[in-house]
């Protein structure tokens, strides 16, 4: 069962939330970030090349122009591979754990999996980010030593940064599954 909704992030960009329900105990949310636009790419390339041409007229060394081309290419590759995140996925499997995947624009994927035994709760928290106060969804991990303590807070959807309405959708579904998991784990 799949459905798609459109939300916005904290800067006003458009996000698409895709929700897939494989079974009552397995749920996947996929949040797609706004893509890199041709306008911004052209602007950056033109700035770099104009600056290089300006330096070239000063120094009369053609190596500067080749260096500028290299820098642009390498910078673009590095940006697509290490910085620009295309979509973020949250997979919750009852009694197994929660998995967060970030897919970069070059296709690289970086995954983290947290076992259900370590998850205490999933909550929406407030934070001060630059000059704004934003909401973010996070997973609270249990403390192995202290039963009621929290050892770590893992924030979700860090590069997409959706607004509260999107977070509430995800939060409700997560809480359904966590409640079901708690109910079944206490019974033998």
């Amino acid at each position, binding site marked *: 069962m799949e459905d798609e909704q459109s939300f916005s992030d904290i800067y006003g960009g458009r996000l698409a939330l895709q929700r897939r329900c*494989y079974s009552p*105990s397995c749920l*996947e949310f996929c949040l797609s970030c706004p893509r890199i636009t041709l306008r911004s790419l052209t602007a950056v390339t033109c700035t770099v090349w104009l600056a290089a041409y300006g330096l070239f007229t000063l120094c009369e060394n053609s190596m500067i122009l080749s260096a500028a081309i290299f820098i642009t290419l390498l910078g673009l590759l590095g940006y697509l591979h290490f910085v620009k995140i295309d979509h973020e996925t949250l997979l919750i499997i009852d*009694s*197994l754990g929660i998995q967060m995947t970030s897919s970069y624009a070059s296709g690289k994927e970086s*995954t*983290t*999996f947290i076992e*259900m035994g370590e998850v205490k709760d999933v909550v929406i928290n407030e934070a001060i980010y630059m000059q704004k106060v934003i909401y973010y969804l996070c997973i609270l991990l249990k403390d192995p*030593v202290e039963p009621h303590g929290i050892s770590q807070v893992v924030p979700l959807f860090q590069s997409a940064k959706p607004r509260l309405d999107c977070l509430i959708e995800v939060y409700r579904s997560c809480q359904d599954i966590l409640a079901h998991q708690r109910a079944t784990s206490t019974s033998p």
Partner: protein
Amino acid sequence: MVLKAFFPTCCASADSGLLVGRWVPEQSSAVVLAVVHFPFIPIQVKELLAQVQQASQVGVTVLGTWCHRRQEPEESLGHFLEGLGAIFSHKPWFQLCRERGSKSWSCKATHWQGPTSHAASGEDQVMLIFYDQRKVLLSQLHPPAVLPDRQAGDTTASAGGLAAVFDTVARSEALFQSDRFDEGPVRLSHWQSEGVEASILVELAKWAAGPVCLLLACLLSLVSAASACRVFKLWPLSFIWSKLSTCEQLRHRLEQLTLIFSTRKAKNPAQLMRKANMLVSVLLDVALGLMLLSWLHRKDLIGQLADALIPVADHVAKELQHLLQWLMGAPAGLKMNRALDQVLGRFFLYHIHLWISYIHLMSPFIERILWHVGLSACLGLTVALSILSDIIALLTFHIYCFYVYGARLYCLKIHGLSSLWRLFRGKKWNVLRQRVDSCSYDLDQLFIGTLLFTILVFLLPTTALYYLVFTLLRLLVVTVQGLIHLLVDLINSLPLYSLGLRLCRPYRLAAGVKFRVLEHETGRPLRLLMQINPLPYSRVVHTYRLPTCGCHPKHSWGSLCRKLFFGELIYPWRQRGDKQD
């Protein structure tokens, strides 16, 4: 209640049979290790499982049945399979079924209540998780870094779950010994059932490693016994050995080689990795050293270096003389105290004159010495770099001497000034109570004290300027030596074998797992694929870096500035805690 069944991907196409594996009740998950095919005799199956259990300390049992048929199982087969459930009783009893050539799986887990109450047995939902048996067997889980205020032992209790799966598969090697072509009583299907795979080279290397290690261990023990003999412990030699960084590096390498070729087997995977890293580091070092040697000899650089060395030393001495002449005049427009200036300047000039004579005395032997030193590069690039650092230290010995003279003079002056300043104000340093107390001085004490204080204050700029200049020179030399040491440390400590393993066999070093949901149809159980999430490179370097000599500057920037201000001598390299005045 959802049960989890970990199923190896290699058994997905196996014929029907019994599922054999381990049931973990705390996670309510079953780890399937192999499939036993028909025909079999239940007694023999139980014997085999008991043997495996004894050999591997893993509770291997029969978990259920596996059915791989062209169409839906017939009624007779269904009863036969349930009959098996009575022979090998296990709670819960899994029944996995797959139609040949299709992707639809079905599985049920029943709690066997008894032969009569079939209808009352509860059925639970099962989630199928596929895993690659070979990769899980070979990989090593690295749990996330523990918080600094916790012990590592606390987290093992909560790190059950997937660590238990990895542990089970890794320890069940005894089950994977027999393959399909064996003539044993029981036919198993697992990742090695197509034939146990091995490499001839690896087996030969393992076989030859024993005698080779023994031989090399004897040689190395001879060398270390020779180096530990009494002659080298006498005072001048032991002092020199402790100062030279070459000896430190050689000692470090000797220790590493002794560890690599010791005949004791590695106790755990971390020690094995450490040995492998050390071996690769030593081999790379020697290879780089040999490359350097061939480059030096090809261009006959040693001869050129020897010819250039004396003129360079002369040039440095001449520059120092010019510097001192400048200081003896009016440096940067400052007015110095002429008499003190002349005394200090002449003293240092005489020192440089001695140094130049010494260098000229050595000049005929330089080329031979350099040639022999160049040979030492075949012991490794790190040894060559350490020798370079030592040569720099020896050639700039006069700068070090000047720094010590200047620093001592300045230090004395500062202490004298502070003590006389206290006298000026009518106070005294109380040694017993380690604090400043007031004191009533006599008139003549005050008179002489004030006089001396005035003299020292007016002589301060001269001494301070000499101290500043020579400290800057010394810091420059120390920086160059520091860079060389940094490079040596890098070569010593980088875990190249682990990095290579991460690059070529990323599943061996696992940070965790990741799941992917496979095609799902409603009414069928949920199927997931478990893959290994490899360790990021930064964590590989952090976990497996080799310990180095530890010659790192022990001061923070604040204490360094304080020492410079008060004229205390700076020793950037404290090697093995030796003390020196």
